[in-house]
């Protein structure tokens, strides 16, 4: 089945370089990969499930129904979107009454779920193609990095964390372990406890990276990026502290390792921390 890439809210508006790099990588690997079209917010499980689980189920299922209609498997690289779609599908698969409830509403807008849809994380697709990735590396990425997978990537076991590490290592990157590797970025906490969210979660990790030998922070989850982006700006605007180590999406490093130039995916634009030092190190 073809893959329908789910953009979500953050990627198209805040990290277009990652969106472009992801499509360059997918094309380079000859994956049957295109946009899932007409998508909406995933819808954020951390907020909506807390307000009303049936509303979350209902609104999330519109994306699942769109994928079924377009005949594609949903592919998410944001862990929040992945968990939302994955858990919604599991729930309506295992609970016929919920499926009926969802379809009652979807039929009013000309959609229906027949449970033919599948939900995959982008890391799963990359890992299935790991041999192909290794064969396509023309520029090994000789850097040291700290990685941030994000909580929802760990929710269903160690599969995704292992894939994330394996893929990073396959590019030639040396991973630096830290005491904060499993710590939440603080995205959802921001709504209720902004100080802890900013200064005791993402901020703590960014401060650690600054003092370490790492060249950058590698991430995959758009939700976590949203938080890191916000925290970098808050440190700068409210504390006068500027971080120097950039926050880099895994797809960007894959694209660079395949021989693409930073300008092929706009790596320099619209970033909270300039990646120029990293680019110079990788390209040289």
């Amino acid at each position, binding site marked *: 089945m073809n893959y329908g890439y789910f*953009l979500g809210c953050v990627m198209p508006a805040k990290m277009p370089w990652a969106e*472009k790099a992801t499509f360059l990588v997918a094309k380079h690997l000859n994956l049957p990969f295109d*946009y899932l079209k007409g*998508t*909406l917010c995933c819808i954020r499980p951390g907020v909506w499930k807390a307000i009303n689980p049936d509303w979350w189920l209902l*609104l999330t299922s519109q994306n699942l129904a769109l994928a079924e209609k377009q005949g594609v498997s949903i592919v998410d690289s944001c862990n929040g979107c992945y968990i939302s779609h994955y858990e919604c599908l599991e729930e309506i698969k295992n609970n016929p009454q919920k499926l009926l409830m969802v379809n009652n509403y*979807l039929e009013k807008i000309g959609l229906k779920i027949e449970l033919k849809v599948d939900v995959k994380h982008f890391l799963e697709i990359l890992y299935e193609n790991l041999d192909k990735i290794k064969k396509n590396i023309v520029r090994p990425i000789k850097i040291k990095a700290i990685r941030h997978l994000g909580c929802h990537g760990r929710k269903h076991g160690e599969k995704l964390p292992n894939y994330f590490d394996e893929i990073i290592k396959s590019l030639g990157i040396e991973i630096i372990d830290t005491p904060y590797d499993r710590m939440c970025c603080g995205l959802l906490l921001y709504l209720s406890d*902004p100080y802890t969210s900013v200064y005791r979660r993402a901020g703590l990790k960014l401060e650690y990276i600054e003092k370490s030998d790492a060249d950058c922070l590698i991430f995959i989850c758009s939700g976590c990026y949203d938080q890191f982006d916000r925290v970098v700006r808050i440190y700068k*605007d409210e504390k006068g502290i500027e971080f120097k180590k950039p926050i880099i999406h895994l797809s960007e490093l894959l694209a660079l390792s395949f021989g693409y130039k930073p300008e092929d995916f706009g790596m320099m*634009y619209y970033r909270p921390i300039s990646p120029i030092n990293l680019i110079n190190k990788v390209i040289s």
Partner: protein
Amino acid sequence: MKEEMKEEMKEEKIEEKVKAWEKLLESGIKFTIFNQNEESQLYPLRKLFRPSAPNIVKPALQRDFEIGLVYPIDKNIEEIREKCGLDRIPPTAHSIKESLYNKIKIIEEAGIKDELMYDKEKKKFYY
């Protein structure tokens, strides 16, 4: 002694403020039509209640109801997207409006809009 502790706690609280969050909260309050605190002075016997949509999430909810996604694509982002080699507007509900209209229909049919007390015309929450 107690007063000193209170003062210390106050100072700690001041340190703990995140201005960006307070701005977000303020904009959430601006998305509210009726202010319960003001109303309680006019109608002192009226009970205060906790609205389904907290002020801090109202800006994101409002965008979700109007765009279908949490973040809009403005002209500045359109230009950056183009520089990155992408279409100026992504093929999401940002450009495929049918999806947005369908979502709005579900939100209305399921009573979500009413429960969250959202006024479609004013694009604000009653409380």
